[in-house]
């Protein structure tokens, strides 16, 4: 034995066992780490509300308006000597304010100042009037937003509850979890009113919030804020005309398009871009899967895999089977093994879905992926598949009837003796290509023939389609020359037994 073989044998025969305590200890420690990882991941994937809402210009202004609210609500409830009041305690006592209006001049980075008027009715309604004439109405209770464009007479309903809930939660979080520290920064006269200035800071937060309040009424007169967006760009705002508990017209907060406005429902630009990105990633996954299938078929005599599980890790990374748009699904894609002969337009892969939505990505045999918006179109494509299958099945049944008739004719000429094999049927009785099953043209002998035993019973199975595995069913021919499509394999096997019973 060669040294290498000897060592190899020794290594292969080497074995080790661990006690259950060892396994438990290692697994327990590993599971603790896994739990930590889950928590870390969960924290990391918490939506960054600020980033989300700061994506669009309109959102920036509205978001700034939301943050301004938090300062108002806090300062409104100061009473007496502000410096003696713990800010957090005051925040916790906020219960009564029901409406709030204010005007803000917001200066986003590298842009001109924008005047925004905001109105709030607790607990769910918010209306932001933007400088370009648009009005954004948010109903946090319903998780919906309505953008009214008075210039173009357009009303756009945003069906993005997460986003509006995000704004609402921001508001709520600020109110319910205040951790500001307050320091007095001096006095200043604003519009003839003597005010006291307070600077609000929070942890290592670099954002600056200064509130100028009337010490007589404990109401804020002016609020100055300097905050940074996620790119570090500075946004400044100055808020004035602050009024609490004014009577407000509820109709200003209705999520209905005014008369004469065109109305449509859309996602926000941010949601659209996220959806598009996920859709493109999913299409990329599907292309990889299709490529892996094609390579598999090349290595397996043009046979596509029975399922996606057959694609080895060498051909396909496991996470490719996850649809980025629906990561919670273990199998993000539905695979249909293509029927032969393969036509390029056969649907072989599509995104798993519970409801239709905007559309789905669909993959074809030739490796290309299309996004199909209309469900009816997708169904037609799938229906085409079924039609092709059905046509082939019918053609095959006709072939089988021809073969059976040829057999019967043969028997008449040979003292009721059926042919020993289909090759006995001369070309005069049967065209050569009749023996080819249109559903499996690659098979030389598409049909299995069983010479009937005598006395011949009409229900004897004498012919059936050759098959490697049972799929939808097969065509079966009987001694009386009728052909039947049998779906269940058990029924077919039962029919095969009939001649024995007859005998």
């Amino acid at each position, binding site marked *: 034995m060669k040294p290498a073989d000897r060592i190899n044998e020794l290594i292969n*025969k*080497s074995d*080790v066992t661990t*006690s259950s305590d*060892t396994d438990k200890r290692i697994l327990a420690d*590993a599971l603790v780490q*896994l739990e930590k990882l*889950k928590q870390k991941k969960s924290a990391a994937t918490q939506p960054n509300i600020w980033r989300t809402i700061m994506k669009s210009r309109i959102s920036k202004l509205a978001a700034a308006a939301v943050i301004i609210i938090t300062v108002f609500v806090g300062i409104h409830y100061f009473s007496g000597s502000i410096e003696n009041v713990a800010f957090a305690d005051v925040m916790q006592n906020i219960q009564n304010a029901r409406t709030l209006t204010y005007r803000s001049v917001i200066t986003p980075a590298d842009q001109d100042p924008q005047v925004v008027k905001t109105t709030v009715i607790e607990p769910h309604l918010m209306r932001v009037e933007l400088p370009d004439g648009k009005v954004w109405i948010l109903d946090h209770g319903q998780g919906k937003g309505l953008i009214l464009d008075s210039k173009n007479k357009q009303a756009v309903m945003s069906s993005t509850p997460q986003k509006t809930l995000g704004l609402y939660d921001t508001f709520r979080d600020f109110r319910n979890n205040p951790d500001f520290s307050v320091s007095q920064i001096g006095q200043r006269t604003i519009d003839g009113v003597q005010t006291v200035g307070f600077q609000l800071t929070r942890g290592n937060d670099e954002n600056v919030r200064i509130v100028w309040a009337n010490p007589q009424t404990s109401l804020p007169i002016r609020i100055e804020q300097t905050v940074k967006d996620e790119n570090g760009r500075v946004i400044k705002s100055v808020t004035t005309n602050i009024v609490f508990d004014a009577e407000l017209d509820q109709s200003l907060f209705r999520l209905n398009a005014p008369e004469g406005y065109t109305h449509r429902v859309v996602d926000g630009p941010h949601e659209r871009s996220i959806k598009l990105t996920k859709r493109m990633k999913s299409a990329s996954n599907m292309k990889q899967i299709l490529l892996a299938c094609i390579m598999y078929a090349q290595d397996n005599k043009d046979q596509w895999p029975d399922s996606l*599980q057959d694609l080895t890790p060498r051909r396909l990374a*496991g996470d490719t089977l996850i649809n980025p748009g629906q990561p919670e699904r273990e199998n993000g894609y539905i695979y249909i093994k293509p029927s032969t002969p393969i036509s390029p337009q056969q649907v072989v892969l599509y995104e798993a879905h519970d409801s239709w939505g905007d559309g789905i990505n669909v993959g074809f045999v030739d490796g290309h992926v299309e996004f199909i918006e209309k469900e009816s179109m997708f169904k037609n494509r799938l229906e085409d598949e079924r039609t092709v299958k059905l046509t082939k099945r019918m053609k095959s049944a006709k072939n089988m009837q021809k073969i059976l008739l040829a057999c019967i004719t043969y028997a008449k000429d040979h003292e009721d003796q059926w042919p020993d094999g289909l090759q006995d049927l001369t070309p005069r009785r049967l065209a050569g290509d009749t023996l080819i099953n249109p559903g499996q043209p690659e098979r030389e002998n598409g049909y299995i023939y069983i010479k009937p035993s005598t006395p011949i019973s009409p229900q004897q199975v004498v012919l059936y389609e050759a098959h490697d595995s049972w799929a939808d069913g097969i065509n079966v021919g009987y001694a009386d020359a009728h052909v039947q499509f049998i779906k269940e394999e058990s029924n077919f096997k039962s029919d095969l037994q009939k001649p024995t019973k007859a005998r």
Partner: protein
Amino acid sequence: MEDKLLVLKCKRGSPDALERIYLKYKTDLLVLAMAFLNDKSAAEDVLHDVFLSFVQSLGKFRLTGTLKGYLMTCVANRARNTNKAKHHLSVGLEAAESFGSHSHEPTNSVICNENLQKLSGAMAQLPYEQREIIMLHFKAAMTFKAIAKSQGISVNTAKSRYRYGLEKLRLILDEVEK
């Protein structure tokens, strides 16, 4: 495919998937560690550390080859570090004898069969570099090119170490069998 899915499930926090990976590969990894270190406790520690590191790195982990190959390379790297530490301790503290049992008492939690005892005993007489190449080649089915890459040496060096190691191992085993 199974490993890819298991890793994916682990990434999503599935304890079952983690357990499946552990049970699937623990024996191979322990045999490898034993062959490297000839020390049950140290081998068990290596297995423990490799699994913990694997879980800790799951966030960034992307399986490009086989999971078995990956874990075995981790065991090799971890065992190498343990071996270096052992060498350092034996020189610095003159505690070579006591280090054999590492920080634990002799343990019954890991039980090696006769072949493994023979293998690890013989391997212990080889230079560590040669042990590594022989085991990674035979047990992890790694090519010399892959081994050379993982160890930062040339392919020829890897092959030479393998050849010399094999020859020496043959002599040691002959001696043992006499």
